[in-house]
């Protein structure tokens, strides 16, 4: 399992990445002038076509190349070289930072707050260098009180700023649940629309490498019920940057879920500016036999299983749902109508996870198109074990996915 990912280091990634970012290149890439008009953005739709008239087939191929690069251990050099725009290669945490920095350049109301985000650069280096560039006030180190700095972010957002609140680990945001649920999600509504809360709450979550039960939380399960918020999960450097930018520009509170083990994924992303649609799912691999819905790290387990499945003669359609609240039932529905079989692969626990909600939503809306019951593979309802071997058992493995597909497609 560990061999799937290129360059995955320890999850407590205090040490710098293997490829330290060249700061000059960094500044250059963010110095693009942005005219503010939609035409200067490249918005890539989930079916791979670009919304500029650049010839949809070329665009689709480029998107596939981007996705393949993120999954394969060895970059497909030939494919990358044949892309019409060279783009630049970076790691996922650098992509997040790039998106963040571009938005901070573009709009001086954007600010960051969290523990150790300033001079330390953030525990996962997402904010490295930003305090030097934008100052201590705009990239704010806070005392250790998640409820307080989340609340502070909400108050600042209500007063016109656009804060990004970083939870060092998503699990810590449980301390801020009151602020996120009762205030962040609700104040737009209870104020009758007077106050908007354009806040982004982000941080790493999911099961890492022996981080222990408390630091392996899947908070999307707990937050999914909160009205008034949006939730997205990134999985590649490309969508990490795109979702970060879109989340910052959104007028609604957005929770951006990153994964502890995906920060060192490498991918080539476009030089030109782009954002990803917050409510759209991403078509990772079109297919005919079965729809596999997944997000975040499980995408890679699914793609690894897909390789085995293809060798066995199956043609799975893999969709990274990306938008956890609301679900992109349009993309998902079209897929279900085509394949008639659904497998959900998630990292959440069995009870009350994203998979549970997604199963209900698909059953409600597309029951007539299903040839088999929906199968949802998730983690067990146990605290994540510290023992490495047991920890591996709580995560859905590619072999399980292959077996489930084979059973569903009988």
């Amino acid at each position, binding site marked *: 399992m560990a061999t799937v990912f290129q360059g995955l280091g320890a999850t407590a990634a205090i040490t710098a990445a293997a490829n330290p970012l060249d700061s000059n290149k960094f500044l250059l890439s963010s110095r693009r002038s942005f005219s503010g008009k939609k035409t200067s953005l490249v918005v890539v739709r989930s079916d791979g076509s670009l919304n500029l008239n650049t010839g949809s087939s070329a665009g689709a191929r480029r998107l596939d190349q981007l996705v393949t690069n993120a999954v394969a251990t060895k970059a497909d050099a030939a494919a990358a070289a044949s892309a019409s725009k060279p783009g630049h290669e970076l790691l996922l945490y650098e992509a997040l930072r790039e998106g963040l920095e571009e938005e901070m350049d573009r709009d001086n109301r954007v*600010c960051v707050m969290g523990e150790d985000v300033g001079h330390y650069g953030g525990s996962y280096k997402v904010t490295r260098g930003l305090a030097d560039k934008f100052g201590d*006030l*705009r990239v*704010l180190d*806070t*005392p250790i*009180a998640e*409820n*307080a*700095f*989340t*609340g*502070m*972010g*909400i*108050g*600042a*957002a*209500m*007063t*016109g*700023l656009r*804060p990004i609140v970083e939870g060092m680990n998503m699990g810590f945001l449980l301390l801020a649940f*009151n*602020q996120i649920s*009762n*205030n962040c999600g*609700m*104040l*737009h*509504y*209870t*104020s*009758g*629309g*007077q*106050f*908007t809360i354009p806040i982004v709450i982000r941080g790493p979550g999911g099961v890492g490498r022996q981080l222990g039960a408390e630091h392996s939380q899947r908070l999307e399960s707990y937050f999914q019920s909160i*009205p*008034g918020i*949006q939730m997205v999960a990134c999985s590649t450097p490309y969508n990490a940057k795109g979702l970060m930018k879109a989340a910052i520009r*959104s*007028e*609604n509170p957005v929770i951006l879920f990153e994964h502890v083990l995906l920060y060192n994924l490498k991918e080539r992303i476009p030089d030109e500016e782009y954002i990803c649609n917050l*409510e759209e799912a991403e078509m990772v691999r079109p297919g005919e036999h079965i729809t596999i819905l997944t997000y975040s790290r499980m995408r890679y387990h699914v793609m690894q299983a897909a390789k085995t499945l293809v060798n066995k003669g199956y043609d799975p359609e893999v969709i990274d749902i990306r938008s956890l609240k*609301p*679900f992109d*039932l349009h993309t998902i529905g079209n897929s279900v109508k085509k394949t008639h079989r659904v497998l959900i692969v998630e990292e959440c626990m069995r009870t009350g996870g994203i998979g549970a909600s997604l199963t209900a939503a698909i059953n409600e809306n597309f029951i007539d198109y299903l040839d088999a019951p929906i199968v949802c593979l998730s983690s067990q309802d146990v605290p994540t074990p510290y023992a490495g071997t047991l920890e591996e058992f709580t995560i859905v493995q590619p072999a399980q996915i292959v077996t489930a597909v084979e059973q569903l497609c009988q």
Partner: protein
Amino acid sequence: MPVHYGSKKLNYFTVASTIASQLPHAVGAAYSLKMDGKDACVVGYFGDGGSSEGDFHAALNFAAVLEAPVIFLCRNNGWAISTPASDQFRSDGVVVKGQAYGVRSIRVDGNDALAMYSAVRSAREMAITEQKPILIEAVTYRVGHHTTSDDSTRYRPLEEIEWWQMARNPLTLYRKWLESNGWWNDEAEAELRSNSRKELLKAIQVAEKIEKPPVGDMFTDVYDAVPSNLFEQEKLLQQTVTRYPQDYPSDVPVRAVPSS
């Protein structure tokens, strides 16, 4: 919650039921003012009970470290529903807690309008010019019940309530001071009361005539625009109400949300 209004125009954050959660918001708003270099500060109000919440401590600590221009105004009225202050904390009131966090603090007689005015005015100046937080503990008494569904004589003696009502009533004290300066008298009082009552009755009349919010209003302002899932839920609700009108109030319009 009828008293949970808000007004962006008047710089008044919408009140939430969660206790003390507004204090970190106040720090956030002060952070925003500080960043913009505005000649303004933030005031965050809370009670003696609110000072027990974690958000209070965190907010004070943050404000001190951030050097945020915010005034924390604690209305210590001695009661949190049925919990007296002696069961809320064992510290010397709330003022010492501010001191503990490195926030300059003052205790004021909350029933003395002039003392309060003077203290808050100075606090505002200090907060803005020095960019530091201030804590004001206004000591007062909750003469009324916690809510209309509370009867506080169940947990405190009637004599205690009556004493505060008579001896330390801030309205009476202030009125006596105005009258002693010749700026107020019984006629003015009667006129003000009568006018206020008329204004209120008129407002009630106007409000009663206003149409109740339509069903569609339930789904607006959850997000900036109504998303598809809420649109579906609204349609379903409209269908249900239209099909079974006898089970729903008749004065709530079933108008759809206009699609923009």
